Each structure stands twice: as structure tokens, then as C-alpha cells.
């Protein structure tokens, strides 16, 4: 489990400089799926924020925006953006937040990289307030809509919507 995480961090570290060039358009397409359903809230966590492509938009929906990622190189790129988001280096399975800290958690294309996504969703649910909204996407070629829904239910969340769009499955859930 640790070896896989270290390898992932190494890969993102090596490719951080070219990430936006390769993936910005694709990632922004995914954000456009999620953004319209996000309510205006107090605190939002972007879990696996990467180079921070979504942070500017999220700032229109929340007062405190936090971007968490496991790659310091990606966070250095995120830091250069004109965003007021707070950034921190973290492991998604060991989140450095108190229980029920966030109103909204978004996590785009992170779960398929985690050794055990069920654990990751459970940990994310821990730091989300009761009544909070979570928006998760995974790559369809890695996981099915049923799997994503199962993780969400296993974390005690209520799936509100599971949609397939392009290469992704997206689940909106409530705690």
C-alpha cells in the first residue's frame, strides 16, 4: 500500500511540469460536471487537488477552500495560481482534519489511484459535516458505477446521483 503511494507520488512529481498541458482541458470538462451542483457553503475540500485547476472555481462557492494533494511538486504549481485556497500535503487515507470539518468535498480522478478506494471514501466521509455533499469521479475503465456507489454507501453516505460522462463515472452523495 505504501509502496504504491510512494510510486504514485514519484510519478506525479516527475510529470507535474507538463500536467496542465496534457490534462487541463480534460480535467476542466470534469469540473464542469460537478461545479453547477455545488451549493454556496463555508468550507470546501478539494481532495487530490493536483496543480490546483479547480481551486479558482471552488472559491466562488465557499469561504475557506482547502486543496490537499500528496505531491509537493503539484502543490508548488497550485501555489502559483491566483487563488486564495489553502494548500497542504496529505495522504487521502490519513486526512489531517478534525471530524466534520467540511460542508463540501470534491475529489476528481483520485480514487482509481488509491490502493483501497473504500478506505479513502470512508476517511473523506469522516471529515465531512452531517448533511454535507461529496462529489467523486473515477475513470470508467478502472471502476464501475456500481463499485463507486458501493464505496459511498459503505462510508455511510447516501448516493444522490451516479452519472457516466465520457471516460468518467461521477457520484454525488450526501452524508
Amino acid at each position: 500500500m505504501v509502496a504504491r503511494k510512494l510510486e504514485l507520488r514519484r510519478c506525479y512529481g516527475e510529470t507535474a511540469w507538463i500536467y496542465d498541458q496534457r490534462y487541463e482541458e480534460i480535467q476542466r470538462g470534469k469540473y464542469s460536471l460537478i461545479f453547477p451542483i455545488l451549493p454556496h457553503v463555508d468550507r470546501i475540500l478539494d481532495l487530490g487537488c493536483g496543480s490546483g485547476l479547480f481551486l479558482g472555481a471552488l472559491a466562488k462557492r465557499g469561504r475557506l477552500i482547502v486543496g490537499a494533494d500528496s505531491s509537493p511538486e503539484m502543490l508548488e504549481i497550485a501555489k502559483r495560481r491566483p487563488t486564495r485556497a489553502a494548500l497542504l500535503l496529505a495522504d487521502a487515507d490519513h486526512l489531517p482534519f478534525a471530524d466534520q470539518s467540511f460542508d463540501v468535498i470534491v475529489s476528481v480522478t483520485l480514487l482509481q489511484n488509491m490502493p483501497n478506494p473504500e478506505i479513502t471514501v470512508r476517511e473523506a466521509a469522516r471529515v465531512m459535516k452531517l448533511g454535507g455533499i461529496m462529489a467523486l469521479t473515477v475513470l470508467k475503465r478502472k471502476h464501475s458505477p456500481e463499485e463507486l456507489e458501493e464505496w459511498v454507501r459503505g462510508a455511510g453516505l447516501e448516493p444522490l446521483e451516479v452519472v457516466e460522462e465520457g471516460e468518467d463515472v461521477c457520484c454525488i452523495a450526501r452524508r
Partner: protein
Amino acid sequence: MIKREDLKKKPIDPELLKILACPVCKHDLKLKGNELVCVGCGRRYPIKNGIPYLLPPELSL
């Protein structure tokens, strides 16, 4: 909400500090100089270039 220019003077946004917890034992973290220290287990987490490094020991940098 703290202003962006003020953030440059502080190692960490006070609003963020309120909700931070130790990634291992989940106790509160206190800011001590340029480090975050767990009030429960005493683990210390550095802040590098304004970014808190809050990793469990097996993944720490």
C-alpha cells in the same frame, strides 16, 4: 476571512488551523514557530514554502 496579503506574514491561515488534526492520532495541532505540533502524540509537521506537510510517518518527506 484572512486577507491574502496577511497570509504572507503568517505561516498558516488561522481558519485552516482551526480544523487541522494530526493525520495519525487526530488530535489538534498547534503552531510552534514554523512547525505544527500534535498536542496528543507530539509528532511534528513542517511547513515548507507555506505548505504544511501533514503526512503519516511512512510517507513523510
